[in-house]
């Protein structure tokens, strides 16, 4: 199952990078969401996906799923949400001020 998940992660990264190179600001924001999904899934997969009990003390006598990566991912999810929310607002403001979300038009002057 891990091999399958690694392939899924590869697909997520491919699409994430592809969208990152796009001209539209919205696509860039979505690409960051996709890339963070890929990273979260990678964290989870690297710990192994052996089907065991969820990390709740009363669910089994032993053989729990590794709880540490889950805690890490939880932290990562919240932080990436914060960043995404900020980016969304920033993109919104950019659009309002410059009337475009085309990064090609948002570039600085040639001498910078």
């Amino acid at each position: 199952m891990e091999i399958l998940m690694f392939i899924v992660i590869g697909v997520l990264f491919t699409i994430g990078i592809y969208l990152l190179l796009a001209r539209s600001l919205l696509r860039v924001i979505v690409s960051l969401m996709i890339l963070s999904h890929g990273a979260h899934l990678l964290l989870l997969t690297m710990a192994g996906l052996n089907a065991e009990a969820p990390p709740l003390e009363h669910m089994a006598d032993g053989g729990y799923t590794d709880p540490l990566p889950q805690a890490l991912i939880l932290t990562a999810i919240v932080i990436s949400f914060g960043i995404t929310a900020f980016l969304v607002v920033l993109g919104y403001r950019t659009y309002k001020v410059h009337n475009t979300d085309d990064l090609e038009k948002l570039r600085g002057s040639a001498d910078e």
Partner: protein
Amino acid sequence: MSSLHIAILIPFMMAILIPIIYPYTKKIHTGWFVLLVPTALFLYILTFLPTTMEGGYEYVSLSWVPSLGINVDLYVDGLSLLFALLITGIGGLVVLYSIYYLDKVSERLHHFYVYLLMFMGAMVGVVLSDNLIVLYIFWELTSLASALLISYWFHRKASVYGAQKSMLITVFGGFAMLAGFCILYGMTGTFSVRDIIAQTEGLAGSTLFLAAMILVLLGAFTKSAQFPFHIWLPDAMEAPTPVSAYLHSATMVKAGIYLVARLTPVFGGDAVWFWALVIAGLVTLTYGSITAVRQKDLKGILAYSTISQLGLIMSLLGVGSAALYMESGEGAVFYSLAITTAVFHLLNHATFKGSLFMAVGIIDHETGTRDIRKLGGLMTIMPITFAISAIGLASMAGLPPFNGFLSKEMFFTSLLRATEGDFFSLGTIGFLLPVIAWIASVFTFLYCAVTFFKTFFGKFEQSHYEKTVHEAPFGMLISPVILVALVVTLGIFPNIVAQSLVAPAVTSILPRFSVDELDIKFSLWHGINTELLMTLAIIFCGSVLLITMKKWSQFNIYKRERDPLHWFYDQGLDGLIHFSQTVTRAQMTGLLRDYFVYMCAFILLLLGWTFWYADAWSFNISTVATTPFFVYIVTAVFIVTTLCLPFIQKRMTLIIFAGIIGYIMALYFAMFRAPDLALTQLLIETVTVVLLMLAFRHLPEMAPEKAAPSKKLGNIVISAAVGVTITVVGISAYSLGTDANFSSISDYYIENVYKLGGGTNMVNVILVDFRGLDTMLEVLVLGIVSLAVIMLIKHRFKGGEDV
């Protein structure tokens, strides 16, 4: 802190003092205060003369950075003394001259004298320093002071150009020299020149020997304006004339000569050193003398003649270094004559070139022009200047009974002797040396004669000049008169310096020999020999060329005044600027996409190369879990949804698809037994989608992605490469972890979650108990984000550029 240290500090302290006293003493020319410094230093340094005459030396040390072996060690021997006397002596005369040359009302005198004192202190520091790093520091200070003085009239474009040029070239050489010094340190473990000389024996075999030598020579050649680094010197003539007289004829340009002479005991005796000095010196000598003939500006002529004379001294130092190869005995003494000549000519050149520059300054000052095509017939109007110039030029041309004649005769003797040697594969081409020197001397004679006749003979035309031409004031004439008096005295009684100044200097350059062994004597008349015949031939050929000047001055090559080598410098500098601008423009496109491409490409290269280099392929899939059927279905849906994203053109559709992907992520978390993650993911995905909808609902539709097919293909290739790399590295790292078979730290958490944490939900206990700090900071991140969002929405600058 000894008196010698204080002596070096005095010019710097005076340089600080001058701007302070300048506003209060405007009635007196500032130069009078400055004059005290070189006079006092000159007298002080004279007190070392008895010591050095006996072959002794004075050594004082002052700790500066002892842990790095950098100390302000000062060392006075014959060579240092000769240079220090030249610097302070001519420095005093130049200051005296400048008092009459520079107007105290219209010129910024405090600037001028601060730079001049800075230069003087630095130059004395260069010649007295025993520590290579301290020498280097003073060396760069002279470059800086020189550039400041060249650009003294900074409102003139040519001055700034000349200053920049001299700075670039000499600092380039300075850096090379520093590298050479560091290599020397690496070989010997000391920065002290005397200690390095003491360790010379083992150095020549070292592989670094040649590198150190070439780097040090680069520094010496750039400073002393050797071919092809001479191009900065003619442009440095934009400086006020006292500066040209002081820096660009008598002192700074001899710093390179000093360095070569100082390190001759280290490098001398090697064939590369010999040939580098001889070839560079002779090429510079010839090139400088030929180019000087073409100049129409008096200072231009003197600049190229300085270049040419420096080449002469350099080639003599080269020939003389053979004495070290000879070990000892007759042969060595035979070649040491060249070193004696070099030292003697160094002294002579400083006297006559200083007086010539001052004479040119007088002509410029009194007539308003330095162009020899305009000048003429000044002999009767400026008789004293005429006499000064006549003596100086005759000495430079090598005519008896002046000192230039003596050193030129000895120069020929040295080169003729070199033809007799058969070392350093000299035998076959050795005869060329005196021939080249002879040709160069003909041109030297020619430009001296041209200067002389064009300036002082012919018809006097008042209409050529803006001022009424008359002789210079008395004060201005004092310094050049003193210098030409020296020229004459040294010519007629050369032996007064032979034992006192020249002999100790020669023994410093060739420490293996004692004064008695070298037996240095000069004689004005040495019988009829080859050298004298060569001089007569020079006078004859030079006169023929001068008489036929009308004919050959029509040649194109004569009319082209500017040195063609400047073209390479200008083009090189322009090319460098254009090239760097082109490179910057090519990569700094201002497009986010391009920068992301660079980053991805770099990461891919680094990761791919490391992966391949470490041969990290590992696919141990024995421990992978079995895949339940429903996971295949979910994954298929997930991949298809993800692959759809790039093709979506509508804003809302894109947001919805992003949401679907997030929900499937939550499903994954649920399937992989992570209930808390699933909950959080569901919630956060909902909020994100709502946020995106809120922000982008009212905005017009996205423009369809328009990009060149090649660019699109590039994007696809790079993103696919990133995906594949992540997959491969992930699988490899996973199976590596399996192979290593480490037990997870999580066992501890699982065991103690209830015992120590008092909870049953392991993830939550880790978050708030075992690793609570992460959570705290994560809350802080959310707090900062919410504040930033409020700022973005609420706080708006109106007007201004910050929108």
